[in-house]
């Protein structure tokens, strides 16, 4: 009973894993070009995912461990694209020498391979292994700033809580297996008879374990500390790719098992707590972290409706990721060589100094708040609410809507600060504007960062005007 392997189907994974190896080889052979190789490989992965026809493989009977679909291809491509983007964003930091370039790129591309696996995973084991592959390199990447205040605690928090979450997820998978004997996603069913409760709790634990990954409340405690302690590019990856992995895992479970109430509870808690706490943040990355906690709530809200909501959840996740990436990219660009996000007050007047960066941040924040000109975000919000109302979860749609209002309060606070006039300094000077400019120079933005930001922003704008492209890919 050996499984047949269709290597063509596995092309995206090969590309991803190959990228990791390529980076390693480059590092060994040349000691340079690692970043370039990483970006190149990741881009190749994107194309492999998008342009290879998706099909199943690793099948026993009709149950497959590798399930190809255009949705999986899209998600895998997204992982790869995010990896490429994050690599580009780290160019500045790596040039400054905060981490060994080769290892950094290698770890990130390994994570990408995990992500690709998750996207195509057809059974719980592959899914969890893929998730771990996605996450484990990140423990190390987060810890790279361990010499700075917060860096080590970020890594330790992330690590410990992730381990706990994996344990819970594994326990859940085990319980579910006991109850139903199924591990393949397509065969998942609810427990019957006296195994009902076992199956139920197994499902719940599985959900809880995966919910850690997307930092859903009450399983979110790691996210703010970790994001804030991690280098910004890594935080970017955490809040986008890592979250996407969690969403895929959750969706896989939710699609087959009825988890409405627990998803609803999680969603309500997540968005409400996330938004409320975000209101009071003073550090940029913490704010983004809490906002992304809240966004996770919007993402999982449609999952309460089961398989009917999966498409909406993915759509939201994709739009969210685009916008979140742009937001983090701007933070990277604005902060220059500083690896942390700084306080929100550090961004005062930044939009006046740097028009394009300001505009990009406003675009992404508007989108995250679900308002034009961030059309992508608007459509994301519309999708979620439409899907919830369609499936009879009207009250949950109401909660989402209410939270959108709370969220705007902090997004707009930051966005307005970008254009706020400079604070008067204590001493009197002839031209405070000049002094301000002298103390807040326009930091040079590395070309790679600019490129990543431009591509991200362009994608956010294009998909804002043409969201149907994403829906089409997701629905097949």
């Amino acid at each position, binding site marked *: 009973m050996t499984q047949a392997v269709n290597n063509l189907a596995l092309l995206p994974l090969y590309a991803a894993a190959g990228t990791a190896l390529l980076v390693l080889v480059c590092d060994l052979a040349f000691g340079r070009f690692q970043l370039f190789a990483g970006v190149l490989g990741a881009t190749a992965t994107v194309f492999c995912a998008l342009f290879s026809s998706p099909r199943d493989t690793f099948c026993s009977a009709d149950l497959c461990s590798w399930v190809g679909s255009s949705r999986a291809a899209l998600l895998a491509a997204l992982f790869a694209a995010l990896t490429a983007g994050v690599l580009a964003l780290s160019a500045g930091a790596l040039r400054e020498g905060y981490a060994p370039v080769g290892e950094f790129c290698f770890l990130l591309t390994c994570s990408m391979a995990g992500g690709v696996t998750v996207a195509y995973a057809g059974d719980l084991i592959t899914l969890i292994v893929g998730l771990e592959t996605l996450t484990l390199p990140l423990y190390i990447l987060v810890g790279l700033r361990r010499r700075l205040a917060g860096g080590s605690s970020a890594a330790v928090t992330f690590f410990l809580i992730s381990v706990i979450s994996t344990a819970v997820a594994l326990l859940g998978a085990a319980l579910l297996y006991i109850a139903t004997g199924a591990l393949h996603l397509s065969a998942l069913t609810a427990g019957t008879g006296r195994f009902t409760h076992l199956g139920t709790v197994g499902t*719940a634990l599985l959900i809880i374990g995966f919910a850690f990954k997307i930092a859903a409340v009450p399983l979110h405690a790691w996210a703010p500390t970790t994001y804030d302690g991690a280098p910004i590019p890594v935080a970017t990856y955490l809040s986008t790719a890592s979250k996407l992995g969690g969403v895929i895992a959750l969706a896989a479970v939710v699609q087959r098992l009825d988890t409405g109430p*627990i998803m609803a509870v999680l969603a309500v808690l997540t968005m409400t707590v996330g938004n*409320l706490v975000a209101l009071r943040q003073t550090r940029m990355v913490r704010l983004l972290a809490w906002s992304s906690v809240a966004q996770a709530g919007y993402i999982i809200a449609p999952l309460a409706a089961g398989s009917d909501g999966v498409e909406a959840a993915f759509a939201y996740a994709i739009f969210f990721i685009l916008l979140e990436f742009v937001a983090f990219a701007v933070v990277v660009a604005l902060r220059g060589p500083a690896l942390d996000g700084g306080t929100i007050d550090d961004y005062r007047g930044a939009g006046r100094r740097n028009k394009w960066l300001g505009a990009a941040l406003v675009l992404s924040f508007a989108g995250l708040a679900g308002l034009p000109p961030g059309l992508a975000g608007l459509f994301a919000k519309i999708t979620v609410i439409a899907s919830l109302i369609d499936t009879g979860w009207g009250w949950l749609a109401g909660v989402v809507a209410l939270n959108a209002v709370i969220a705007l309060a902090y997004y707009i606070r930051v966005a307005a600060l970008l254009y706020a006039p400079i604070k008067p300094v204590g001493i009197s000077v002839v031209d405070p504007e000049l002094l301000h400019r002298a103390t807040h120079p326009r930091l040079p933005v590395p070309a790679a960062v600019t490129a990543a930001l431009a591509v991200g922003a362009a994608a956010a704008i294009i998909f804002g005007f043409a969201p149907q492209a994403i829906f089409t890919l997701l629905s097949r």
Partner: protein
Amino acid sequence: MIAEVLTPLLPGVPLLLGLVGLILRPGDRGPRRAAAFLGIAGAALALLIAIVLVVVVDAPVQVGMEWVRFGDLTVSLSFSLGPAALYVALAVCVVALCVQIYSVGYLHDDPRYAPYAAQVALFTGAMLLVVSANDLVLLLVGWEVMGACSYLLIGHDRRLPEAPAAAVKAFVVTRVGDVGFLLGIAWLAVDAHTFRIDELLAEPGVHTAAMLLILAGVAGKSAQFPLHTWLPDAMAGPTPISALIHAATMVAAGVFVVFRLFPLFAASQVTLAVLGVMASVTLLLGALAATAQDDLKRVLAWSTVSQLGYMTGALAVGSPAAALFHLLTHAAFKALLFLAAGAIIHAVGTNFMSRMGGLRTHMPVTFVAFVVGLGALAGVPPLAGFWTKENVLVAAAHATEGGGPAPAWVGWMVWIAGLLGVAITAWYATRLLLRTFFGHVRSRTEEWFVGFDDARYEVPPGPAHDPPGVMRWPLIVLAVPAVLLGFAAFLPGFRSALELESPHLGVSIVAPLLLLIVGAGSSWWLWHTAPGVDPAQALGRLRPLFAAGFHLDQVQDLLVVRPVRALADAVRLLDEKVVDAAVEGTGTTTTRLGTVLAGAHRAALPRAAVAVLGGALLLGVLAAIVGVAG
């Protein structure tokens, strides 16, 4: 054909010229001439049109088109001028022309003359619109534009601190009446599915309530009790404006509207009874208040209130013709009186009779004008007022027999009030004449100023004299109808136009004439026995009451103004402390909740791990209990 063209032009020309005049730059020399030209031209053209129409028209002219359609209700831009309305229009135009010409002299040093003249033109046009409208909405347009113009013109004088308040009062009090007017119109229209007056008049049953509501508007515009309080205060406006408001436009509009809609009013006894009570009260109230005023213009103002009582009284007893006839003569003599009063004020620099006296010798023309005007006002035969007042009293006496549209008691009430009014009017008219023109000239010594705080008037240098030609000629022109208009009742054409009964000088004139002599005589006797003393002193303790207009201002303040203000305060408080506080409170509560939650998240790692596991446990238990997979 020509009538159809001219009818819309009658109000149209002054309105248009008024609007053009408003665009003129105020102040300079050039615009002043242009403004005077526009103003006078507007009035003159309107007069010309009116005359042509009077000559041409023998049956009512009707012309109109659809203006706009609201649902199934059509508002039409339609005009209708019957012979009666034409005479009113004629009166309006004559008075307006006189006022315009007179104003050129009266406001010769006012930099804001240009808008003033334009507003007078608008005012005239609006009144003509009321007169000629055949659609209630169109009528309302004129009705309200008049209100706005009265506001602007009363508040014109910059030197009078009370002018703005008086202007606001005039506008707001009449506007309160207009609430009723609008509702009444709406009610009528909704019931009858039309705004056109001719169609409405053909409508059989109308709501009494609707007519009562319209009556409220009439009371506001025509200064009927209890909405008369604005009129005496409106004296703060320039004197020509007082002439315009009192004689031909504003106050006449109410009476005219009742006249126009009289068939509807006649259908409802209740309405007429209310109108009768209102008229009687107004008549006596105005007359009594006029007895104790020291301000020349205020005497005239209160006399207007009283005379309006005669008109509405005539309407109440079912004699619209008498009302309209009195309206016409009143227009003539009241305009005359006000313009003459303006001449006096110009000459002596004060409004107060206690500072006048002996003006007869210095201002002969004005004196004659006053004699004619006051005679007509008091109803001295054969001046105009005599005939028309007689008509009203005869109609009231006739109504006491019952059988008319109004109940008999209304007839009695109006008749008695009218008779009493005759005596009182004669009394105060005599008092005014004596105190102003007879006695010795009060020289402007130091004590001339004592007790007065109106340093706002510039005291003209030199002795008082008759006004310059531009102001004198209007007086002379207006004196003619004030004397002769009463005889128009003998013209069959005029009579048929107003549907007036032929005058019959029977026994009924004895009582009023006696009362007239009693009133005038007692006033003269008082003045004669104690020279230099105000005859009003004889009123004793009633004098301050009368002088204050029965303190109705205070009553109004107490019953309406203060409650509204208190309500406004309460609502604002509600708005700020409850509605807005709820909104702000939501914000702050949310933020506070955020602070609490953020504080809860500052736990160290081990505790966070425990909390997270606790959360997992909780959700697991929850799942088991709820039965997720149920």
